[in-house]
């Protein structure tokens, strides 16, 4: 088999998976041309990632929810509400009457725990009371929307004064001291990028060796090298772009960690496999000794926690909690998941795909903003892209 034949075969077999990456690449290329390079500038990319952050973490949780054939509409206002709670918990009682003046390291775990509890309540309604998740979470949508208004009623927008908290949405990781080389470039970011490339290569080689020791088929050596070079180039390129501005933002670090952890859980662990099984066929999963009920709790609990995280990211980014925080986040997260290849029929979808989906949607907004396209057309274009993504997904699925 020649190099091109095997490349073609690999591409054909994985077109579904690579489709989103190609779409993201095309969208970015188009905006780079139409904005004469502004889109791909370091500053804009950093902004783009920070804007995607609070939707991206929701999209990760929503991926799991949709995989198990459920939906959660309450996450947007839950994020907004918990963001407000975090702001109040940190506020000085002299400024905000019910402020608690708690330190950041206490507020973040507290908010995340509240999120888990809220998620478990939805999980209880779905798993125990057998209420359709659409209805259960629609009730949550209304309740949390009201709850935001209740807690911000007396004060209106709550300003967050804590600089450590605000750094989560606006700050960057520190740089190593200047040693005289590469001035104007964020060296720690570069170093991390190089480290990531090395880890990737080592990991890929390890997997390949393990597979070979079992006598399993592996990618032809040319394709394997090409894949590594390609991935290394992408990581390298992004690192270089980020290092050109202020380096890796804390938001990016958080999203990366969430993605890595969830991706690992979903693809490598028993828990992840059980979640996919429930989505693929709940009756078969139950008869295989998997407790569907328990996993509904786990998945909704995780969604609640990520909603809290989204609220923290958003509040920190605005440096304040507003009365309308979280509006339509749930729909952006659901759209990101569908663009990223999650199947509405359940059982299919990848966390990384949803992150790419979120990036696609934010890229569209960012690029069209830079081009000066009005908000009305932005909605129409995003709607069309969502429809196109799902059509692509449905039509390629039949062929596998």
């Amino acid at each position: 088999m020649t190099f091109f034949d095997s490349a073609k075969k690999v591409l054909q077999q994985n077109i579904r998976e690579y489709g989103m990456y190609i779409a993201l690449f095309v969208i970015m290329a188009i905006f780079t041309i139409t904005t004469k390079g502004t889109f791909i500038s370091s500053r804009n990319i950093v902004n783009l990632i920070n804007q995607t952050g609070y939707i991206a973490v929701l999209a990760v949780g929503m991926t799991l929810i949709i995989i198990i054939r459920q939906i959660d509409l309450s996450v947007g206002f839950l994020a907004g509400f918990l963001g407000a709670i975090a702001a109040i918990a940190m506020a000085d009682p002299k400024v905000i009457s019910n402020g608690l003046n708690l330190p950041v390291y206490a507020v973040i775990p507290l908010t995340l725990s509240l999120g888990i509890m809220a998620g478990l309540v939805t999980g209880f309604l779905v798993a125990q009371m057998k209420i359709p998740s659409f209805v259960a979470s629609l009730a949550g949508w209304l309740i949390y929307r009201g709850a935001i208004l209740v807690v911000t009623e007396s004060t209106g927008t709550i300003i967050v004064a804590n600089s450590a908290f605000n750094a989560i949405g606006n700050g960057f990781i520190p740089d190593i001291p200047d040693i005289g080389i590469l001035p104007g470039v964020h060296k720690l970011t570069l170093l991390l990028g190089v480290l990531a490339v090395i880890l990737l290569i080592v990991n890929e080689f390890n997997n390949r060796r393990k597979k070979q020791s079992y006598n399993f088929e592996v990618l032809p050596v040319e394709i394997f090298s090409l894949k590594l070079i390609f991935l290394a180039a992408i990581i390298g390129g992004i690192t270089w772009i980020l290092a050109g501005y202020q380096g890796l933002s804390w938001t990016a670090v958080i999203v990366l960690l969430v993605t890595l952890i969830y991706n690992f859980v979903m693809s490598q662990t028993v828990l992840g496999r059980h979640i996919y099984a429930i989505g693929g066929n709940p009756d078969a999963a139950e008869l295989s000794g998997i407790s569907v009920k328990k996993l509904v709790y786990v998945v909704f609990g995780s969604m609640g926690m990520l909603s809290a995280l989204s609220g923290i990211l958003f509040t920190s980014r605005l440096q304040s909690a507003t009365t309308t925080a979280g509006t339509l986040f749930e729909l952006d997260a659901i759209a990101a998941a569908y663009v990223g290849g999650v199947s509405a029929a359940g059982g299919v979808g990848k966390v990384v795909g949803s992150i790419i989906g979120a990036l696609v949607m934010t890229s569209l907004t960012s690029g069209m903003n830079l081009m000066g396209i009005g908000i009305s057309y932005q909605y129409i274009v995003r709607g069309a892209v969502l429809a196109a993504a799902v059509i692509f997904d449905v039509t390629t699925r039949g062929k596998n």
Partner: protein
Amino acid sequence: MNAPILEMKNITKEFPGVKALSDVSFQVAKGEIHCLVGENGAGKSTLMKILSGVYPQGNYNGDVIFNGHVQKFSSISDSEKAGIAIIYQELALIPEMTVYENIFLGHEIKNGLLIDWNETIKQAGEILKKVNLDINPATKVRNLGVGKQQLVEIAKALSKDVKLLILDEPTSSLNETDSENLLALLRDLKHQGVTSIMISHKLKEVIEIADTITVLRDGQTVATLSKDEVTEHKLIKHMVGREINNIYPKREHKPSQEIVLEVRNWNAYHPTLGRAILKDVSFNLKKGEIIGFAGLIGSGRTELALSIFGNPDGYRLSGELFVNGNKKQFHHPQDAIKTGIAYVTEDRKGDGLILIQDVKQNITLANLHKISQRGVVNNNAEIQVANQYKTNLNIKTPSVEQKVSNLSGGNQQKVCLGKWLFVGPDILILDEPTRGIDVGAKYEIYTIMKDLVKQGMSIIMISSELPEVLGMSDRVYIVSAGKIAGELTAEEATQEKVMRLATN
């Protein structure tokens, strides 16, 4: 005998790999009650589906002559127009609608563009009188018992000016009184000139009501008997009178006397309706033994298996369950699996396999922990395990990374089997293990079963195929209407005996 209202001539119908009907001829005289009997899978339903247009013209060979004309039905509405109405076991009424709405659903009485409700209610009342049902037509169907719902179905058929009424197992879910009412109604309708075909497993009622009886077996008409010549014995003989081909692997091995599973006075009730599903069931299973559960479809065999296997449907249970002499109570299939029980479902596509996943993921699903360390799955070990079962069970698939939806029925069944063997059970429950798979694959499954009991596993086999039950089992329990109707050893069991107990 009157002139025939219906003649089905030389009907042959093939499904991929199976001949469901071969050269069947069937004649119904005008104004009679004609019963169609035969074992599960004999072809009764297929024949009725051809008659009612579910399988359209061109999908089968042969002629359907109704009312003197060759009919070319291509859908149910065609056959309805001709005056044929079929009432299935699963009632097709809409529970949230009223009786009169249901009766005229699809052929509403109109006044211009609008539905004439007053006329509808009036006519519904008249039709209800015809079926001896004394209820307010404005009652919601949801609030009626099954017996009355059945009568509403018949009323619906009558409202369409039916000439030939087909009833598929009408009394299977009715109690004695309702059954008698229904049979009386059929006689009434006969006097009003309606011809009926009734499919039934209950031979006593068949003999009681039928003018003519046609027996199908393995897709062929084996006998047509008039009511004067019929006896229960004759019917059973025709129903089961096939040669048992020697397709069962020979077993030299004798089960031990050690009881591994025992169920005593087991009762199960539906979680919401409260209806009794299993009544006072007791049985036991010995080490290295295959016991067969024979019975008709719907007799409660699957429900019995599920109620033992962790009760996933949430029946209310009473009675005792012993595994290896220890009393057990399972709250979830998980508990049963941990105790060493595995259940291979009858509906492999519905609740056995995850069709969108591949062979290896399906095989390891019930025992992922075995190939995991601290919750992390070893993907390579998984492929190895799957390949092992692929070889051992001779699963025909290009690779274990093939989606199971692309496999044939027999190979899907082997994947199911592999999944449960990977759990390493002591007791294996097989529910219809060979349904819908070809003869070659059947033989392979029988051989696997034989090897398993030789290694000390104990098997419960639920099967609607009598020859299979008799060919494979050490003992046979016959289940009928949620009760154990009898127990026979392999030596005692004959098709006639089993059938008699099952249809009682």
